[in-house]
């Protein structure tokens, strides 16, 4: 090889094409000892960043970081839009599908949330909205390489599912949480057409029984299935087909059966899938006792499932079978007994083995004594939910401040609690605020309206005050019991990180809501029912509503005029008013609207609202 002086560089060294002079890149050449070096034009720092910007932005996954990056300058805005692969839509009415797909063109994963949470409590008409249709139609054209869809509280039809199944050849994951409007026919299309499907999770959704055997529709050869969750599906499944499906799904890790699956069927599936990590046990009882057949060895099946960390189901659980889960308890990190009416002794027999438990959902049938057992055994507990077996107001609840305090003393790492009870004391709540400083979510539901401290008869202001004062990481709060404006004063003063606040049957006057709206800069979602807040309180939040995802107020003291005034003052909010036309109104509620649901939006009033919804 000769060494020529001043030889021009080979083309594969790729001198950058200069769109602008400052982007000139210079290439070196090989030289002997006598050559001169080539002229260098160093790019400006921000040009350097532009060259590598897309690489940098790929490392940004948090939505807030991406928003910040998009606002740095025009080229960052463009680069960020090109590199965003996960799209999150917190309110499906805040932005149109077209606007979203025009800005973000390379999305692989979409999450959309629709109705506000109070929809779960029958506070909204069935055809209210949150339709998936316009989204799936637009995405079908804009994102042909889409892989994941997560929907929460959306209305989804079988037709939507068919479009999904036919439009996205790389589709891998579908999760429908608290959705409705579709049935087994829709599931059948997804199962048969989405050949690369890894995840099909149906969680707390209503699924219509069209008499279609969707389980049989999965591919005949090995499937890619990793997660199949259908515990909310209220129709019979073709069990033999499910068994065959499990056998030909070697990657299956999560399987949650519905309550129509018997324990015998559960056993057969467990034997074929010992690799499961998450198991929903279905009914956990013998639904159709077959006479004369020997009882399968349930405990062995559990013992063989060495990877199980999460157990749920127990929908009609017979306590006689509980012993079978003992072999896996030591490894469990999550246990959901919220459908199992087990008593103290039954709970104790299980929980004493669950030393690694981090998440526990139970019914209040376990009583305060059961909670004491949890406190004694589960030192790693992060999340506890105690649900009422009887959600009635005048019922003697078996759990109280006693169990609550025990938990606070035993489970110091607690981060999230949801607790239903009929009686509570400030002392117990204050104790929890001091014992569990890591609390991020605190939801206390003292059933029965305006219940005071059980021992002192005082309002529950001091307890909730202590929570916002001492739990410095708190972002979600639900309050209940007898509360005066003082409680809201505390929340406004100390709840600086609170993003979600739920209020029911609380407060004295407009001041309460004012304190919160003026004091909580991070408030995103505010849901209020049956509280005495009126138009003046509503108006006190004008400065903040554009920073929030939504405001919900039902059975408060808002008038139509108040809503119209808000709508006029805030043109970019959509103000929806719901009024039951023919409801019998008692004297107290005359003149007041039933429900206000208000949210910021780039699109203005929606055109799919049912008659009962009026847009101010």
């Amino acid at each position, binding site marked *: *090889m000769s*060494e020529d002086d001043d030889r021009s560089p*080979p083309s*594969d*060294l790729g001198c950058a094409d200069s769109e602008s002079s400052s982007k000139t*890149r*210079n290439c*070196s*050449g*090989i*030289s*002997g*000892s006598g*050559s001169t*070096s*080539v*002229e*260098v034009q*160093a790019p400006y*720092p*921000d040009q*350097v*960043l532009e*060259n*590598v910007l897309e*690489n*940098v932005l790929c*490392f*940004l996954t*948090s*939505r*807030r*970081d*991406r*928003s*910040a*990056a*998009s*606002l*740095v*300058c*025009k080229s*960052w*805005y463009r680069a960020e839009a090109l590199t965003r692969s996960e*799209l*999150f*839509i*917190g309110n499906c009415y*805040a*932005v149109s599908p077209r*606007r*979203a797909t025009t*800005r*973000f063109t390379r999305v692989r994963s979409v999450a959309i949330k629709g109705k506000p949470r109070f929809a779960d409590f029958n506070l909204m008409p069935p055809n209210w909205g949150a339709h998936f249709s316009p989204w799936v139609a637009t995405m079908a054209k804009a994102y042909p390489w889409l892989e994941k869809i997560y929907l929460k509280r959306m209305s989804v039809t079988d037709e939507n599912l068919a479009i999904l199944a036919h439009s996205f050849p790389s589709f891998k994951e579908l999760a429908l949480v608290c959705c409705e409007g579709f049935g087994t026919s829709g599931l059948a299309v997804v199962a048969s057409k989405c050949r690369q499907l890894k995840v099909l999770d149906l969680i707390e959704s209503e699924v219509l029984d069209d008499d279609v055997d969707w389980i049989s529709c999965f591919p005949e050869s090995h499937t890619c299935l990793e997660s199949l969750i259908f515990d909310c599906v209220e129709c019979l499944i073709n069990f033999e087909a499910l068994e065959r499906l499990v056998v030909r799904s070697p990657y299956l890790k999560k399987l949650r059966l519905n309550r129509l699956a018997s324990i015998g069927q559960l056993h057969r599936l467990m034997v074929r899938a010992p690799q499961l990590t998450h198991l929903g046990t279905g009914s956990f009882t013998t639904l159709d006792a077959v006479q004369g057949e020997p009882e399968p060895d349930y405990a062995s099946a559990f013992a063989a499932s060495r990877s199980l960390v999460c157990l749920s189901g127990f929908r009609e659980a017979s306590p006689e079978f509980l012993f079978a889960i003992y072999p896996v308890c030591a490894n469990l990190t999550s246990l959901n007994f919220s459908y199992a009416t087990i008593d103290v002794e039954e709970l104790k027999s299980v929980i004493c083995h669950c030393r690694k438990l981090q998440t526990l959902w139970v019914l209040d049938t376990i009583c305060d004594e059961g909670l004491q057992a949890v406190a004694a055994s589960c030192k790693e507990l992060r999340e506890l939910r105690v649900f009422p077996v009887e959600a009635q107001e005048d019922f003697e609840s078996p759990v109280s401040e006693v169990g609550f305090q025990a938990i606070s003393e035993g489970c110091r790492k607690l981060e999230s609690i949801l607790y239903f009870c009929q009686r509570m004391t400030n002392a117990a709540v204050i104790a929890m605020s001091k014992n569990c400083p890591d609390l991020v979510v605190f939801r206390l539901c003292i059933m029965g309206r305006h219940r005071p401290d059980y021992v002192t008869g005082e309002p529950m202001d001091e307890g909730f005050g202590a929570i916002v004062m001492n739990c410095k990481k708190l972002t979600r709060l639900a309050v209940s019991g007898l509360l005066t404006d003082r409680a809201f004063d505390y929340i406004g003063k100390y709840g600086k990180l609170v993003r979600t606040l739920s209020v029911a049957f609380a407060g004295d006057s407009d001041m309460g809501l004012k304190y919160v709206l003026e004091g909580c800069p991070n408030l995103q979602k505010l849901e209020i029912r049956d509280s005495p807040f009126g138009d003046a309180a509503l108006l006190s939040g004008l400065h903040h509503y*554009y*920073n929030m*995802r939504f405001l919900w107020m039902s059975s408060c003291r808002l008038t139509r005029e108040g809503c119209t005034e808000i709508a006029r003052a805030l043109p*970019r909010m959509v103000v929806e008013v719901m009024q039951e036309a023919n409801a019998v109104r008692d004297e107290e509620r005359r003149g007041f609207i039933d429900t206000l649901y208000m949210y*910021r939006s*780039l699109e203005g009033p929606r055109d799919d609202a049912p008659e009962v919804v009026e847009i101010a």
Partner: protein
Amino acid sequence: MSSSDSERMLKLKSSDGVTFDIKDAIVVTKLEFIKNIIEDCCGDNDLILVPNVNSEILAMVLEWCKKHVGDDIISDGEDDEENEYFSRKKEIKKWDAEFVKNLDQGVLYHLLMAADYLNAKQLLDLLTQRVADMIKGKKSEQIRQIFNIKNDFTPEEEEAIKKRNPWAFE
């Protein structure tokens, strides 16, 4: 090619005239740019000019290359070898973290520029991750200050975007 490749020495000359002697094997798998030059036409003791990179930065790049020699060799599955492989990987990761930790902006830019120019993908990934870490949790104005970026939105554009768009996707 007269000598065996693995022992061959190269000379790299920085923009400010400093020459670095370095074994071929150390740089050739990490710096695509060098690899391409050598493949085309290199004899022993050839001097490769790296005119875009000054000596301070080139020294750092070479230091990084030396640390990462053979880091992509995977063991054959023998337990001992595997343990050694994993502990070496861990050690390299720690070293990388230290390497980027206290870089001042100017040096970071020039390193990024050098890594981009020398087509050093692995080093580029490390540095871009570092830049991303500097961006995380920051507001737009802070990001601009850190990287000395001019805000080229008009006030109207900025108002419009700030007020309307980000939250819709947050």
